[in-house]
């Protein structure tokens, strides 16, 4: 008997419904994400400006890299890839991401370990820990800006009283400390998120493993290193990647806490300044495109790496 896969009416109805159900969401996503992304990429290859968007003309990769000949045997590279301010912002972003994610993971781990123990008042502690996360980013930025105020800030006051510094520090204004200021605020605000994710990973470890270790007389540090850490590594890794991707896109804190500071200008801030403040719309679009490519590359690598891991482990 010929084995044709005849789809019953039920299956066909359901498949048709599926696409009908998906259509509105997909259309919205297309208009809100796919199309604008495409336009941004398009703009990066044109000479678009804010007022004359519709009259943008194709100029190739001029915004990215262009060799301008002075005509007298010398010339110079122009464009994003030759712009030291761009590369500075790339470096700022990477440095920010690495440092912030590292500290957030470390502190998050500590907090998660604490919250994983049962002790009196644990519920209150957990509630308290959530507060930085609940506060809007802009509000956090302003709160800390006030605390780090060079004249009236409580931070300087505390440090001077403790003898850690001898004179007030302009945390947000001075190029040496601006990045530190940003990092403090971001780490303060995002550690709860990391702590929660790691806590979820911790809570998935079955309790009997710990009991078996106790019966075997394994000391706590060993338990942590050899049992806990390996078991929560997958969850921690996912959290780290998520956070890293977020950190690379950082904008709000930098723009509000340390505006116009070379030391903290990240790729997003750089792009926006060019797009809207400096009337370099096409140039800003190119910066945006490059940032997108970086994020896309990392995301795809991560997906492939975890896919390959799954395929490698399953027979």
């Amino acid at each position, binding site marked *: 008997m010929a084995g044709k896969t005849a789809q019953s009416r039920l299956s066909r109805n359901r498949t048709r*419904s*599926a*696409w009908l*159900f*998906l259509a*509105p*969401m*997909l259309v*919205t*996503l297309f208009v*809100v*994400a*796919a*199309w*604008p*992304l*495409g*336009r*941004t990429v398009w703009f990066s290859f044109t000479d678009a400006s804010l007022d004359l968007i519709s009259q943008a003309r194709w100029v190739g990769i001029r915004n990215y890299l262009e060799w301008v000949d002075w005509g007298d045997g010398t010339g110079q590279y122009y464009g994003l890839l030759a712009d030291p301010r761009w590369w500075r912002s790339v470096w700022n972003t990477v440095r920010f991401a690495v440092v912030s994610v590292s500290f957030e993971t470390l502190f998050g781990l500590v907090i998660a370990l*604490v919250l994983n*123990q049962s*002790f009196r008042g644990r519920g209150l*502690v*957990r509630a*308290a*820990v959530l*507060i*930085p*996360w*609940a*506060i*809007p*980013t*802009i*509000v956090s930025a*302003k*709160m*800390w800006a*006030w605390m780090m*105020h060079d004249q*009236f800030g409580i931070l300087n006051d505390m440090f001077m009283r403790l003898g850690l510094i001898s004179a007030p520090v302009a945390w947000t204004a001075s190029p040496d400390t601006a990045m530190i200021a940003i990092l403090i605020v971001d780490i*303060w605000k995002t550690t*709860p998120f990391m702590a929660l*994710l790691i806590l*979820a990973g911790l809570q998935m470890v079955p309790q009997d493993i710990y009991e078996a270790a106790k019966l075997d007389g394994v000391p706590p540090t060993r338990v942590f290193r050899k049992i806990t850490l390996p078991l929560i590594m997958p*969850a921690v890794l996912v*959290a780290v990647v998520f956070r890293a991707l977020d950190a690379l896109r950082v*904008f*709000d804190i930098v*723009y509000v806490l340390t505006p116009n500071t070379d030391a903290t200008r990240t790729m*997003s801030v750089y*792009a*926006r300044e060019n*797009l*809207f403040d400096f009337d370099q719309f096409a140039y800003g679009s190119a910066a*945006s*495109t490059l*940032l997108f490519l970086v*994020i896309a590359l990392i*995301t795809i690598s991560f997906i492939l790496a975890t896919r390959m891991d799954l395929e490698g482990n399953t027979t």
Partner: protein
Amino acid sequence: MKPGIWQRIGFYAIVIVIVTQAVFPFYYAILTSLEDGQALFEVNYLPKALNLTNYRAMLAEGVFGKQMLNSVFVASVVVVVSLFLAVTAAFALSRIRFRGRGLLLLTVLSVSMFPQIAVLSGLFEVIRFFGLFNSLWSLVFSYMIFTLPFTVWVLTTFMRNLPVEIEEAAIMDGASSLTIIRRVFLPLMWPAMVTTGLLAFIHAWNEFLFALTFTSTDSQRTVPVAIALVSGRSEFEIPWGNIMAASVIVTLPLVALVLIFQRRIVSGLTAGAVKG
């Protein structure tokens, strides 16, 4: 094996550090907001007096009240529309087998990875084209870029775990897909929808870049932009008292919401982030 007395002290010391660092900035903001005039220019660790001038300034004069309403409006509408679109989409993605389903889900998820700046110029053009510039609808529209993937992902994961047999019983009872969603699944999904809606609301409430770019007049601004742009009468006079008052006004309800729905939020965050 009971932990020794030093270990207990050490543990609670760490707990105190954790709680203090988490709560102090907020406490200090409240403190500052209750100070006026001279008190602001001193560093106080404890409240000196309870002065509500800053609050009166923010709420009575100016447009801050309207800006709060703007934020409420935008966040609420975005959440409602997103949930509506996401529920039906989640049903298709979790309960119906069709070709390309896995890829589609991955694509939708990947949209949440877009850097906002990457779509900014393109969105700017689209919003101007639809005449939405400087209107709250521009924000409702553009916020979908992060609320839709998130709500679709979480609701899909949740729906996937609803028992197959209940759906099959409904099919045997003659219910269409829409009826199944409406009368069988939706009642079972209230908790997930509340959690997802709450998280999406908070995200929309906090959003800064789009709100900064797509609105140009104070009366159309949302809270984050309003607070960021608060300026004093002269360039050198930043009204920190007002800023702190505004911050507290905005944050108290959020903190209250988060504390009340703690458990839900924690499970929602971990469900969304820990890839199922």
